[in-house]
């Protein structure tokens, strides 16, 4: 068996709260979130950066957490799907997904919501092309995408006078 390195201390903010964990430096942020912090809302799909199911926001930018080694999360501000709703109050994006049937089996949904939030923070009034580009990194095997697209459009309408994604 290969020799092992030691776990290292990682300090970051997750959904607004300071967190400290020990992890192997090359552990995937995805696994650190799910197994060390018990934030199991973030899903693993492909594990190779293609499907977007593990998407989280890192310092405000969308990243695939399966491709981020734990050590790179040190000092970062991370927002997962658990940080999108405020308590029991869903965000406009989540409400829109419910209303428009944007979720079926649910595996892609956390990543889709994160991608939609990231999109609406950059483009509060996205064009059709911008919506398609914003969601191009997230794969769904159930919906055929149309209802997800409609959910994003609905979220924009619902928040036309508010900033989407920020409750």
């Amino acid at each position, binding site marked *: 068996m290969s020799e092992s390195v030691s776990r290292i201390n990682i300090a970051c903010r997750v959904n607004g709260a300071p967190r400290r964990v020990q992890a*192997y*430096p090359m552990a995937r942020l995805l696994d650190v979130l799910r197994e060390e912090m018990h934030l199991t809302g973030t899903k693993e799909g492909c594990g190779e950066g293609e499907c977007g199911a593990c998407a989280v926001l890192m310092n405000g*930018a969308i990243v695939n957490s399966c491709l981020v080694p734990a050590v*790179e999360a040190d000092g970062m501000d991370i927002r997962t799907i658990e940080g999108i709703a405020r308590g029991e109050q869903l965000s406009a994006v989540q409400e829109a997904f419910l209303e428009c049937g944007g979720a079926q089996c649910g595996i892609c949904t956390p990543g889709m919501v994160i991608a939609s939030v990231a999109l609406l923070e950059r483009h509060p009034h996205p064009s059709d092309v911008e919506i398609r*580009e914003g969601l191009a990194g997230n794969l769904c095997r159930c919906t055929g995408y149309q209802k997800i697209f409609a959910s994003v459009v609905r979220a924009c309408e619902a928040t036309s006078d508010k900033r989407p994604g920020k409750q």
Partner: protein
Amino acid sequence: MRAYIPAYDLRVPGSLSETLALLSREPGVWQPFAGGTDLMVLLEAGKLSHKRYLSVAKLEDLRGIDVTTADVTLGALTTYSEIQNHRLLQKEFPLLCTAARETGSIATQNRGTLGGNIVNASPAADSPPALLVYDAEIELISARGVRWLPYHGFHTGYKKMQIAPDELLRAVRLPRRVKKWRQYYRKVGTRRAQAISKVCFAGAALVEKGTIRDVRIALGSVAPIVLRAVKTEDALFGKKATPTIIAAARETLAQEIAPIDDIRSTARYRLRVAQNLLEEFLSQLAK
């Protein structure tokens, strides 16, 4: 099979000098790790054979886009997102911005770096054809000093390059000489978003009254390295893009590239598409 994660080391040196010192003291032991968008994929697949890495992600000396009247210098850690959002790059180096926009998803573009795209040395990488067309130069640094070299010639074979084990790619410099050039970039993959290319083509030409005064052409995924098609360029200097000249250029290109059958495409398809992209590029010059 998944990798055994505790076997992998990823250290975070506090400064550039510390990084270079470590690379110099133990050459070949440590490899740089930037955005991780390629290495983490190999890790998960159990195919990442090297075990010890130095994270360079927080080294400020490898960041930033500096503009002078003569050139634009991009730190090796410049992400695809930073490239495509940069005003001057959009205006003067659109091929690089298009390449950045067509590399992976937004999540990948936020992490993947220009330097990583170069030293990962994939023949299917999207930004190198643009860099070749722009006559890019690259800066390599080590504890021994600094050296600049032309990017053309840096890759010497499949995954082989002119970089010593103690050297780090610090920056990429683009001369601002193509403002008046006609520019063309097209990547052909299985689907329009987030595909690895079957063929990637970048071209730029200085055209005066229909005559090609200068031209540069580069292709990805058609040879063991991203290729500058110099023989095809030579066949075009001083010519007008007539049907006869275009037909001849297609033949020259066929002699110059060496596409293969692999998981993404076939040699036959790649050859045909590479020739068609060349024709599309040259036909636009004639207009």
